[in-house]
């Protein structure tokens, strides 16, 4: 594979996170159909697609909450497909779930402490989270059920960070939040990445995803319809892949030469 075809990565890097031929069923419905991707250390990989395309299912399967029928999930080359979600979390695959899912009866600080219980060694501590999100320290004894949506999202991210993940999975950060808040949260991403994190994110808001991602993939009805870097793909291609319109040139597999 040439460097260009790889989307700009040298091909002797081991991907930190790899998904190979993943197929997942929800009962009778095939939610994911032979999905593959590779996420390299330090990059932001975005999965985009409409509602029901299978994006969250993909993330949840990587986190271990869904069983796959076929396919594998590999962390730094090691097969984690058989591991339970809590084991994967302890190994470094930490997800910020869709809808925040904070522990409502616990305070902000207690939520962070839970996140830190099985933390790996690393730069992130509760102190550091308070330094990064400066409003949090003053409200740390407040029960999270009383926070606004954007504040909850930040706490949820903080809860994941204190575990010092190797791969951070972000599931629909923008869900239910005002655009201004979404901008602010995504604006903090560089700070988070500066500590050497790798991010795999799922996002319905395509423009936001294109702004932060180093590489992306589009899903439709459980299948990959587009793969490449934001620079490589045109708006028309994204639209076609997102909505599944025939007649537009949907690009599969190899990156496009533009």
């Amino acid at each position, binding site marked *: 594979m040439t460097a260009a075809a790889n989307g700009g990565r040298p091909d002797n890097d081991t991907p930190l996170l790899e998904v190979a031929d993943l197929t997942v069923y929800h009962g009778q419905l095939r939610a994911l159909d032979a999905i593959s991707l590779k996420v390299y250390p330090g990059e932001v990989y975005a999965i985009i697609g409409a509602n029901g395309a299978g994006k969250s299912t993909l993330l949840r399967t990587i986190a271990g909450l869904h069983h796959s029928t076929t396919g594998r999930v590999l962390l730094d080359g090691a097969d984690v497909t058989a591991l339970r979600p809590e084991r994967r979390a302890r190994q470094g695959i930490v997800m910020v779930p869709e809808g925040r899912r904070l522990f409502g009866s616990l305070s902000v600080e207690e939520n962070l402490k839970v996140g830190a219980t099985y933390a790996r060694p690393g730069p992130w501590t509760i102190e550091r989270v308070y330094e990064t999100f400066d409003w949090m320290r003053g409200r740390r004894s407040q029960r999270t059920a009383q926070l606004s949506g954007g504040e909850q999202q930040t706490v949820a991210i903080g809860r994941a960070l204190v575990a010092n993940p190797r791969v951070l999975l972000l599931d629909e950060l923008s869900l239910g939040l005002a655009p201004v808040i979404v901008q602010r949260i995504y604006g903090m991403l560089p700070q988070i990445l500066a500590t050497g994190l790798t991010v795999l994110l799922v996002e319905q808001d395509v423009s936001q995803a294109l702004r932060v991602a180093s590489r992306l993939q589009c899903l*439709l*009805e459980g*299948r990959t*319809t587009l793969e490449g870097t934001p620079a490589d793909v045109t708006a028309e291609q994204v639209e076609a*892949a997102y909505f*599944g*319109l*025939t007649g537009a040139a*949907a690009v599969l597999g190899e990156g496009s030469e533009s």
Partner: protein
Amino acid sequence: MVTKAGPRAAESFRVTRSQRNVVWTGVGAVVVVVVLALFPYLVYSGTTSLMVQGFIVLTLASMWNLLAGYAGLVSVGQQGFVGLGAYFVLIFALHGLSPFVALPVAAIACGVAALPLWWLVSRLRSGYFAIATWVLAATLMLFIERFNSLGGGTGLPVPGFTGMSPTLLTAYTYWIGLAVTVAALLAVYLLLRSRVGLVLTAIRDDEVAARSSGARVGLARLLVFVVAGVGCGAAGAVLAISQLQVQPSADFSVSWTAEMAFATIIGGLGTIEGPIIGTVVYMVLQQTLASYNAWYLIILGLVAILVALFARRGLWGLVDEHLRVRLFPVGYWLRLAGGNDRSGRGR
């Protein structure tokens, strides 16, 4: 990436309630009932007494199956209705009504009593609902025991049997037990075939989906609770008649719940045929192990645990899977042109 799905080629199909074999089942059922009705002429009174016990358990089991298997209500307090039914018979008999005539009245009275009781406990969630029904049953017993006119804590003989010859008494008791059981099974069958039955089967399969589809879940449950009250009350009335007396500690004993629950579970929860098989197994176990005292209950409990964990649909479920037989057709069959049958929404 539009999938090339045009409209599927129109297949001719029709929807029927039952397969061919059910006609034979209907005939078979009538034959069985007729044969059973002849028993008092054919067998000793010891056997008919045993059968009456079996009738009581079968009626109770069908009711518990309706509650737990279809409405999702695990009640550990149905013994309250058993005792209530027995005591209603006593009360009516004390006022001059023949106990046999009093039975249907007692059963209906239990149904009426079920309404306020439902209102008391319906807001509780499953596990707490279960214990609440138990408390209700205990409260009913304690309340009734206060009345010395009803025999207080020791009970009373039921009047209205004097002057009857023993053979006639045994026969009448047997027949009324048979009638109650047939009525109970018929009622369950008809209920599940009705529109309420659709709601119940939906609850049985997936409660959240049933609620969100707008099905009148609360009303269906209320109806089931009342029907179960009537059924268990009728069983209690048969008990009073067969024992010729009422006794609070026996009539309100929680072991009735244990019996009906385990007969249902072992036979097959959520199937109409299940309680029948379960009752047979229960009676066989009881008779063979009777000399070992509490052992048969221990074994029953262990088997029920194993069945609940590993064979969810019980013995009938195992039969059903291998023979694909339905004695009581309440489901829908989709018959495609070409003669292939595909079962519709299960049962």
